[in-house]
């Protein structure tokens, strides 16, 4: 019995990517082709799974009903770009190689980037345990990245893109400014040097986590109950973070998958029910503009926040 994802990724590599690379004279990157194919295959599966589960939930148990669904198309574009399309390719070709080269350089200077499995040898060979340990560490790191992105004006100018959506659906998880994505990639790159991040070993488990993140944005009346809410982040919990009045500096429920960090650091709100979403102070282009308009508006806000305040002549 072979894994259907492996088979599909292999088929894509053999019949599409490798002949293409050979044709355009880029065979030097053929080692990365399979990794990317695997990533894209799982990404496509994530999108299919989101569609199959979240769409009925939004259809039959919606919080809000909208006459016009056009602004959701942009979010769909973000999702496909991030999970199947170009972004994984950039991540693989650029980021992965840079990280390998940098960790190798550190090794030569006496710093071996540690890995969790080397520190706790019992983990090696227990993929689910290993993955859970990494998921907890990365989720903790993401909690602080997200919390800080609300704290600094220049950073929030970028992150406001994620918050500006007033028609939040399960497609909204990936709507981020490219610069914000880049900061996140660097952030996790640094974490990886501290604890090591397994790049490809556990694609199925990554799929489950990414699905939970999408679900938490769904426009659906879904709470996991008193205990469930304290174990995993639900659509109700994350929607509180997206509530119009929680946009900006004073926010809550920063977590992505696990609510423990919000509970531990006093930022959890388990009581608020389904409030309207959006960021009333964000420029309108961030909410209803197309992809490029949103990226441009985010960049402008970022530059304005960084520029020194103008002096007024008196």
């Amino acid at each position: 019995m072979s894994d259907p994802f492996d088979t599909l990724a292999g088929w894509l590599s053999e019949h599409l990517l490798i002949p293409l690379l050979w044709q355009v004279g880029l065979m030097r990157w053929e080692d990365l082709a399979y990794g990317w194919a695997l990533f894209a295959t799982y990404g496509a599966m994530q999108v299919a799974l989101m569609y199959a589960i979240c769409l009925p939930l939004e259809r039959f148990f919606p919080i809000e009903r909208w006459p016009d669904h056009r602004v959701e198309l942009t979010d769909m574009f973000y999702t496909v770009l991030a999970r199947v399309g170009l972004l994984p390719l950039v991540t693989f070709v650029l980021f992965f190689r840079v990280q390998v080269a940098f960790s190798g350089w550190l090794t030569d200077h006496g710093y071996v980037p540690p890995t969790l499995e080397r520190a706790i040898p019992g983990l090696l060979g227990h993929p689910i345990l290993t993955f859970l340990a990494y998921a907890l560490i990365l989720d903790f790191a993401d909690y602080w990245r997200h919390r800080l992105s609300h704290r600094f004006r220049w950073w929030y100018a970028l992150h406001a893109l994620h918050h500006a959506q007033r028609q939040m659906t399960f497609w909204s998880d990936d709507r981020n400014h490219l610069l914000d994505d880049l900061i996140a990639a660097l952030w996790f790159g640094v974490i990886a040097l501290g604890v090591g991040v397994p790049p490809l070993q556990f694609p199925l488990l990554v799929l489950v986590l990414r699905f939970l993140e999408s679900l938490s944005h769904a426009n659906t009346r879904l709470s996991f109950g008193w205990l469930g809410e304290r174990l995993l982040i639900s659509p109700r919990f994350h929607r509180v973070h997206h509530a119009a009045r929680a946009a900006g500096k004073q926010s809550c429920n920063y977590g992505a998958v696990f609510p423990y960090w919000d509970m531990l650091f006093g930022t959890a709100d388990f009581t608020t029910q389904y409030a309207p979403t959006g960021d009333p102070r964000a420029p309108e282009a961030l909410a209803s503009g197309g992809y490029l308009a949103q990226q441009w508006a985010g960049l402008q806000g970022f530059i304005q926040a960084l520029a020194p305040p103008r002096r007024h002549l008196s």
Partner: protein
Amino acid sequence: MPRTMLFLTLFLLGAAAARAQGLAFVIDSAGAAVSVVDVGSEREIRRIPVLREPHHMALTPDHRFLLIGDTTGNELLFLDPRTGEILRRLTVSDPYQLQFSPDGKWLVVNGLARNQVDIFDAKDYHLVHRVALKSMPSHLNFSPDSSTVYITLQGTDRLAAIALGSGAVLWNTEVGETPAAVLWHQGRLLVAVMGGNGISVVDPATGVVRARIPTGRGAHNLFLSPDGKVIYVTNRVDGTLAVLDAQSLKVTREIRVPGGPDDLDFGPDGRLWISRRFAHSVAVLDPVSGHYDVIEVGRSPHGIWLNTHDHLPRALAGTAPPHS
């Protein structure tokens, strides 16, 4: 009664012989594991988890260890070649391809991501020379006198010769688009040109290309058969195995092996064990009939090696390893 005993003894001996045939080690690069395959039954019997991304392996000259390079894990693993048990770990940055020199004195490790070639003393694994080479040093091979190592540079379409004693680069020349394997053969160097459709024949003294021989698109790896009569070339893009006459270097046959054929080792019965990068399996190919069995392994099989070769200690081959 004695007759029953005799049958029983024969039966047990027969079973032991079947089991003693040996193991194949197949590295699963994207799965961070090494698949252990029982050669007799052609079944994967277990998986050895490693840290991150293993690619290739080499047997130590004393046959005591099978070295496996984990590139992004930055370590060399020392396995018992008879059982697969991990006996030792050594920190080495970015080990991609690795090979011992014919005289057993040197271990050369290519760092593909780091653009470096590390030359170790094979006695105690201390680093003697580090040679920076642009870019993406991939495969390697030695001159028979162990004075020189030849390195293909996948990123810059070149082949470099390095003197092992001094670590000096003797020459560095262009040999074809994205060169992969290099093989010393009868006073010449054969280089598989992966971005092209065949092999370049290179003068080992100067690095000048003397001839080009088409074998198929994406020529990747080169192997001389144990009897020295033929050379096999795996063609990654075409999904074929080209068979060349070792004397004339003429292609005598082309055998279809789809699924991105990569590495190869020779089985005890004369069949070829070929890793198929994109088909999560190994093809065990009869070079006479062209038919092959398929053995399912991890998702991205790369380096392959069998412990059934004659010169190896076989007493323990195929027996269960201690729990690790």
